[in-house]
């Protein structure tokens, strides 16, 4: 028990508690030598989030790469963080997954301590602080650059946020992309995005954008029918977070591919 109820770390933030009392458990706990060569570790590549009529679609390819090599073909870069939000990660895989876990715990902890959920903007701001907390690691090549998306239950709309390496948060009204293939995905979305799309249309547009990214970015994988690996797609609306089933993604992907030929 903390004798001072308003002392640092005694509030409703799990992250602040770790910073104050258990810094050894933070993803950014390991200090590195100044001037050391940036590390090469597996990186995640193309993720995106997009607003549609009823909420948001969040999607990511499945490949993690380490320089010229494939490190994993089955990685999930879109992670549900609570009942109405999800995180899509790009950057160094290890620290990214660690931060996703920490952020998920953060949201759950707040909910349990306070007896209610954080607002979507509150969640987005907290994530920004956590990304900034990782800045020293980012300078060493272990950057964590997430996208955050969710359904704002107070306003009744889907909202998407992107971050820079220093934790700077930007909200966009239409879509956000990140990762080495993010630029290519953005190009595709720029041409095709329409406000107020339906769910299926939005899912297919997300797949199309990932496909474009996979076309032009070596480190992004497209749908892989041989191994049966398809992008991760989550839809978040008033009902909550739904992961689009692999069969459905396969169907959507086939339609998108058919349209492309």
């Amino acid at each position: 028990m903390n004798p001072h109820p308003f002392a640092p770390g005694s509030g409703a933030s799990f992250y602040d508690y770790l910073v104050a009392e258990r810094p050894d458990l933070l993803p950014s706990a390991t200090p590195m030598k100044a001037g050391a060569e940036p590390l090469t570790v597996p990186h995640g590549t193309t993720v995106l989030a997009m607003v549609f009529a009823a909420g948001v679609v969040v999607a990511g390819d499945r490949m993690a790469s380490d320089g010229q090599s494939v490190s994993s073909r089955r990685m999930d870069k879109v992670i549900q963080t609570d009942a109405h939000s999800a995180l899509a990660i790009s950057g160094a895989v290890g620290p990214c997954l660690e931060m996703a876990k920490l952020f998920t715990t953060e949201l759950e902890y707040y909910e349990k301590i306070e007896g209610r959920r954080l607002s979507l903007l509150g969640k987005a701001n907290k994530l920004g602080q956590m990304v900034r907390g990782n800045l020293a690691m980012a300078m060493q090549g272990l950057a964590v650059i997430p996208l955050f998306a969710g359904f704002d239950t107070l306003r009744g709309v889907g909202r998407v946020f992107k971050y820079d390496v220093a934790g700077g948060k930007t909200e966009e009204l239409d879509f956000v992309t990140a990762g080495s293939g993010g630029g290519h995905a953005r190009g595709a979305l720029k041409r095709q995005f329409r406000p107020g799309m339906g769910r299926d249309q939005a899912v297919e547009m997300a797949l199309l954008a990932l496909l474009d990214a996979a076309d032009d970015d070596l480190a992004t994988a497209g749908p892989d029918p041989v191994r049966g690996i398809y992008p991760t797609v989550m839809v978040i609306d008033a009902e909550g977070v739904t992961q689009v089933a692999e069969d459905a993604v396969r169907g959507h992907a086939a339609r998108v591919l058919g349209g492309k030929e």
Partner: protein
Amino acid sequence: MATPYYVSPEQWMRDKAEFAKKGISRGRAIVALRAVEGVLLVAHNPGAALTKVSEVYDRIGFAGAGRYSEFESLRKAGVRHADVTGYSYSREDVSARGLADGYSQMLGNVFAHEMKPMEVDLVVAQVGDTPETDEIYRISFDGSISGEGDYAVVGGDADRVLNILVRQFTGVGDLAQSMKLCKEALEVGGNGTLSARDFEVGLLDRRKRGRTFTRLKVERVEALLAGG
């Protein structure tokens, strides 16, 4: 010069225990009960803005009786312990047993070393895949801990409420039966006639995956009390 005085350790402990019991008996009782659908936590707590029954982790719930500020800080400490454990190992590694042990140590230390003991009794419950694997622990103000069977009661009038349960409990029932049993036990145990609005009800729902704790809304409790 002040006269030095001597109080025997026995007397000192007895006084502390009496003091704590007095504080706890001022509050109302809380029942934890195994049901087919999960573990039911039922408090007599009209309004329920200040909750007595709450979620700790995926399969673990908490109920605190006695002084609110004290069991609330214990609840927070428990949530913190569970989240740190789950974060640094894995979600499966968080157990009610570990949490109950922690509370027992904490309350025992305070009782032995502090001037004022904590005026709280706690229940830590964990839902399993079947009612037989449910775990219900009762931790008292002095740190004594007991693993209960099908039910546990803490708070004021705990003995009377427990008596009713001992007599009326005939085996693990469904949610409606269990809710009615809790109502009867709390009513006869000294709270007078109660309606759905007077209860704060939490369910560790064994049919759910992940976070199993659910608060039952007044309408749901009404329906259960009306027969299912």
